[in-house]
């Protein structure tokens, strides 16, 4: 085989290796960030012991999980119990293949990129369902059943929300979608805000996050499908969950938030925003250095300084393409580096919204969740698709200007949403009637 | 492209496995799964020939077959649930009276 035949495969394989190697670390640090955000919202500090400000906590957790005794329940279906977490993780990781982290960093730009991500990540549900079933425990089984019903329901509305954005983009390729937003200069969140809202809600439900975390609702089902899992397998489920968060956040970023584009990318007046990433990193570095003397132990001081230095290096990398002459090789790498920064920045912001919602809201009940999904989100997403189609038709067929047709259709969608909300409230009857029925039957446990 | 005969062989093998499943298994759910195998075998043929001929129409039919499989699975599983609720069995040879 000659070298030329191999070359196109080298870079994707390299990216794939990097992603697979880094992902557990990233997931671990998302957990740390989540705990820190939670602590901040709950007037406490969060992990502070391992490393300065708990920065090494994920590694300590990982070691703990790896060293834990691996318990397989005696009556479990061993094969399925063993394989189920792997299915979840594999599906989540495969989905990353088509994500465009900046214009250059992408494993594969598929023609059907977006559908591929959707399809592969929808396979992750098997891991949850089979894991719950194989544990041979009622809590796990209920978690699995809830999960199956919930994911299938919310995939519908998520899919419809995505269709709306796809109508605007006119392509399924992730790169093409971002390109389209770049060309028109409008992120799709402004053109289809209702679609974004639907996708936000549905993606929370799809990743089993509060307030939709029915499958693992800890106060009801102990830990849902993960009840019988411990140690490394449990860690795999966690990895899958956080990878899925990254995946849905990436889809939302690509579809609605302009992908790797800087805000106001086409307006030269906002070019100063290019200096924001390095300045941000420098600010973080400054914070690290300011905190360094306050660390209690010598090692922690050194670690904190190292983190600060790392941030400075990143800032240098970010500023380098702008500092060197315009036509050098480094300058041409600017879209790639800055694109990656903005993409990850948006993904992080989206995940932050997830966390924010999680620590603010109580949990839905399962029937309320299903009612919300089927009676509100699905109809609304269908209306949304129709309205976007209408706006495009008015614009393209009848020549209405953009600024009339799109706002008009957004308003119409919102009216439909309000109508759905109003009728939904009317039908939302409390459980009173069924309580009476239950009392009449009087079936004690030991009938 | 691999010679079309190999695709046909694969398709026939899956069809045969599906038929064996339908004929020999007692569990209705596995029988339904065997039906899915057979439908899948058809799809392989359709898509392979669509590639051979260079027209996507074969793929259209594959999509229709998947739609059909979805409908069949939904109704079939609905029947199984209803039956299980009444008779507490999923074995095909116990479904021998047409009423209960």
């Amino acid at each position: 085989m000659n070298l030329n035949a191999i070359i196109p495969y080298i870079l994707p394989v390299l990216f794939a290796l990097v992603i697979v190697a880094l992902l557990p670390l990233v997931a671990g640090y998302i957990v740390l960030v989540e705990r820190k955000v939670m602590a901040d919202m709950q007037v406490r500090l969060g992990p502070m012991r391992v490393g300065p400000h708990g920065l090494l906590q994920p590694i300590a957790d990982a070691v703990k999980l790896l060293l834990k005794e691996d318990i397989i329940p005696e009556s479990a279906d061993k094969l399925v119990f063993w394989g189920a977490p792997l299915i979840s993780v594999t599906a989540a990781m495969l989905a990353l293949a088509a994500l465009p982290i900046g214009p250059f960093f992408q494993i594969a730009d598929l023609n059907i990129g977006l559908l591929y991500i959707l399809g592969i990540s929808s396979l992750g549900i098997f891991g949850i369902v089979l894991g719950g079933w194989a544990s041979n425990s009622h809590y796990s089984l209920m978690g699995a059943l809830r999960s199956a019903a919930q994911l299938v329901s919310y995939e519908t509305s998520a899919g419809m929300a995505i269709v709306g954005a796809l109508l605007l983009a006119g392509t399924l390729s992730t790169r093409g979608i971002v390109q389209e937003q770049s060309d028109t200069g409008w992120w799709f969140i402004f053109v289809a805000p209702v679609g974004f809202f639907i996708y936000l809600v549905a993606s929370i439900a799809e990743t089993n996050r509060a307030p939709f975390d029915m499958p693992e609702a800890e106060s009801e089902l102990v830990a849902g499908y993960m009840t019988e899992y411990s140690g490394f397998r449990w860690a795999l489920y966690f990895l899958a969950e956080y990878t899925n968060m990254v995946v849905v956040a990436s889809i939302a970023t690509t579809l609605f938030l302009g992908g790797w584009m800087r805000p106001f990318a086409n307006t030269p007046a906002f070019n100063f925003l290019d200096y924001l990433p390095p300045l941000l990193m420098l600010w973080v570095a400054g914070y690290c250095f300011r905190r360094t003397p306050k660390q209690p132990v010598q090692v922690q001081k050194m670690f904190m300084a190292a983190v600060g230095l790392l941030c400075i290096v990143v800032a240098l990398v970010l500023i380098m393409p702008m500092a060197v002459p315009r036509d050098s090789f480094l300058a041409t790498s600017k879209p790639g580096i800055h694109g990656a920064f903005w993409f990850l920045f948006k993904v992080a912001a989206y995940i932050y919204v997830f966390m924010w919602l999680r620590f603010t809201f109580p949990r839905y009940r399962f029937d309320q969740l299903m009612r919300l999904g089927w009676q509100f989100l699905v109809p609304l997403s269908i209306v949304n698709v129709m309205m976007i189609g209408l706006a495009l038709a008015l614009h393209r067929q009848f020549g209405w200007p953009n600024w009339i047709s799109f706002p008009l259709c957004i308003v119409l969608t919102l009216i439909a949403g309000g109508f759905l909300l109003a009728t939904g409230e009317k039908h939302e009857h409390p459980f009173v009637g069924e309580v009476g029925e239950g009392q009449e039957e009087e079936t004690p446990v030991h009938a | 492209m691999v010679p079309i005969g190999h695709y046909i062989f694969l398709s026939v093998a899956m069809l045969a496995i599906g038929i064996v499943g339908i004929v020999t298994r007692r569990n209705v759910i596995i029988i339904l799964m065997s039906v899915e195998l057979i439908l899948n075998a058809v799809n392989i043929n359709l898509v392979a020939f669509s590639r051979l001929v260079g027209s996507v129409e074969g793929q259209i039919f594959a999509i229709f077959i998947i739609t059909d499989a979805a409908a069949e699975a939904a109704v079939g599983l609905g029947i199984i649930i209803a039956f299980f609720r009444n008779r507490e069995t999923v074995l095909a040879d116990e479904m021998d009276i047409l009423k209960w």
Partner: protein
Amino acid sequence: MLDQAVFYFFATMAIVSAILVVTRRNAVQSAIFLVTALLATAGIFLNLNAEFVFIVQVILYAGGIMVLFVFVIMLVNLDVALHQVQFNRQWFVALIISAVLAAQVAAAIAVSRHSLYIMPAAAPETLEPNTERVAFYLFHTYMLPFELASILLLVAMVGAVVMAKKRV
């Protein structure tokens, strides 16, 4: 070369999984292997430049229909069913049917060996861009079947809901 390796890999996987589907005692394991069989088939579709059918197979078949299967398997309590005899005594019938099928295929291949193995495939570009072409045929030439399929799905949905509802 790569093309063929991919095909044989997925074909082997599909056949092995299919055999496991009909031979496993446990319905959940059968379902798992059916998923692998379907995914292997999806891989073959991708190898045949049928991207859209590939994704439909993954999303609808593996992600949708099979979840339904697993869901139902878990709903109907299998603890009892697992201890019952899983196979009836119709191996003989199955053998005959398979033999007949094999004979037919052998005959067909014998008759048309030439065309089956030599016939050149059309250029892959004729199927590009796949999604657009599929969409064109689906919404243009096959509009009526498409709508009929949607009605079929609706009817199936209503039927499934009515059937699985608690008290009819």
